[in-house]
């Protein structure tokens, strides 16, 4: 094991330019992958914030007794999909309109009777904010006799659904693309290392080293390059995150778990690429 570590470290010293180039390229590939990861994370948190606003409004028939409404609120709150129910009386609706529509102040002042109906504002629980659940609950709410009208931003909810789906697919495709590019880059650098050490490998074989023994330093070399590339990529991503957060808008960065996973991903990528490359090129040396 000591020799494996020494040989893997020596490969950095023997070919510093090639090693630096390999680590830089891996770092760049993982940086772009990380940037996309950051976009996905921020898009998700924005979507989550928007999703929180998904609500269904039930407009009540004028004159519905408060007792009936109170019982209905209890029933609706028992729905598994429902997070909260807010009762807005006719007066509260008018007051809210006055505050929000300041330009129509004159119109409100001339009113002799409140034209706005009372309503129930229903917020959905997390996990039930998709268009299907919302439509389902809205249909059930229409069944209440006092419900004059039930509204929800159908288009908006469906767009959110589509956006979520697209973000997932694009993330997967780009992620796989960059992972493949990283594998190819690491594979090529390992191939160059294998070829540059052909003489040494030949001697190792002559004196009776096993294939596994010869392979190990290359695998460690690939894993170390992957890990180093991953670490650099995290630093670069953090720089990009700081630049965006200070200059444009407040963004989110990877959590500790996600950063660890990213580093692990780089290491595994390096290991897999070198295993592939060594398996392919070692028999030719």
């Amino acid at each position, binding site marked *: 094991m*000591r*020799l494996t570590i020494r040989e893997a470290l020596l490969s950095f010293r*023997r070919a510093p330019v090639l090693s630096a180039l390999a680590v830089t390229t891996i770092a760049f590939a993982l940086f772009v992958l990380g940037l996309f990861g950051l976009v996905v994370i921020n898009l998700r948190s924005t979507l989550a914030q928007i999703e929180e606003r998904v609500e269904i409004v039930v407009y009540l028939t004028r004159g519905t007794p408060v007792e009936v409404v109170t019982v209905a609120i209890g029933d609706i709150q028992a729905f598994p999909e429902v997070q909260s129910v807010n009762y807005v009386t006719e007066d509260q609706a008018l007051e809210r309109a006055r505050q929000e529509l300041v330009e129509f102040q004159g119109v409100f002042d001339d009113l002799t009777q409140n034209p706005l109906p009372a309503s129930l504002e229903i917020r959905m629980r997390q996990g039930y904010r998709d268009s299907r659940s919302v439509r389902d609950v809205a249909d059930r709410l229409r069944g209440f006799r006092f419900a004059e009208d039930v509204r929800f931003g159908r288009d908006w909810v469906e767009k959110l659904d589509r956006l979520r789906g697209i973000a997932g697919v694009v993330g997967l495709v780009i992620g796989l693309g960059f992972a493949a590019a990283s594998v190819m880059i690491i594979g090529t650098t390992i191939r160059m290392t294998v070829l540059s050490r052909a*003489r*040494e490998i*030949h*001697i*190792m*074989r*002559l*004196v*009776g*080293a*096993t*294939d596994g*023994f*010869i392979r190990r330093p290359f695998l460690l070399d690939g894993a170390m390059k992957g890990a180093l590339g991953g670490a650099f990529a995290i630093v670069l991503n953090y720089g990009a995150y700081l630049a965006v957060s200070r200059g444009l808008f407040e963004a989110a960065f990877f959590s500790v778990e996600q950063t660890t996973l990213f580093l692990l991903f780089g290491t595994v990528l390096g290991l897999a690429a070198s295993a592939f490359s060594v398996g392919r090129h070692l028999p030719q040396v």
Partner: protein
Amino acid sequence: MIRFNKVFKAFPKGSLALKDVSFHLAKGEFLFLTGHSGAGKSTILRLVYADDLPTSGMVRVSGFSTSSLKRRDIPRLRRRLGIVFQDFRLLEDRTAEENVAFALEVTGTRKSVIAPKVMRVLTQVGLAAKAQAYPRELSGGEQQRVAIARALVNDPLVLLADEPTGNLDERATRGVFQLLRDINATGTAVVLATHDLDLVRAAPYRTIELQEGAVVYDSAEDEGAEEAVES
């Protein structure tokens, strides 16, 4: 120890590198393989250390037979052999001591065993004083001695030497040859492939001469025939 039985080896294009080669090398024997360049000397050595397999026939080396040899057996087979080449094949970025130790490290020998063993063989080849020298700081003869030390450090049963004096001047050639004789005197079999007939004439060892891949002369058979006539 080493047995070739009706061995043929064809080149990829079809011409034959070895034609019906058969011989047996006994334990502790010294054998010269002679012949012009391309006669098949190196091919025989390559078949011994399983760098190549015969097209037909069988090669048997210290219990390993090419008819049943698996890839995973090759390292174990090579640990019983020591191999020396004309171009020394030393690692330029390592000292003489590190080059020799390398052969033990890659076979998983314990660190505590390596240092004394390396010093013992470097002393045996007369290079203990230059253990810290890099190959570029050594003469050709000295580099070949390091290569021989590396081949010896695993205590091989047979030392295979492929034109070991090909790059050396006369004085260094004599020194390396004497070293190989000394090694043989300790019980290690030696197969020395060379086209240097002066070297062959210098010692009364068994000689096999090859011509275009075929054995045209084997001194052991000759002696056997003479003994048969005398009796």
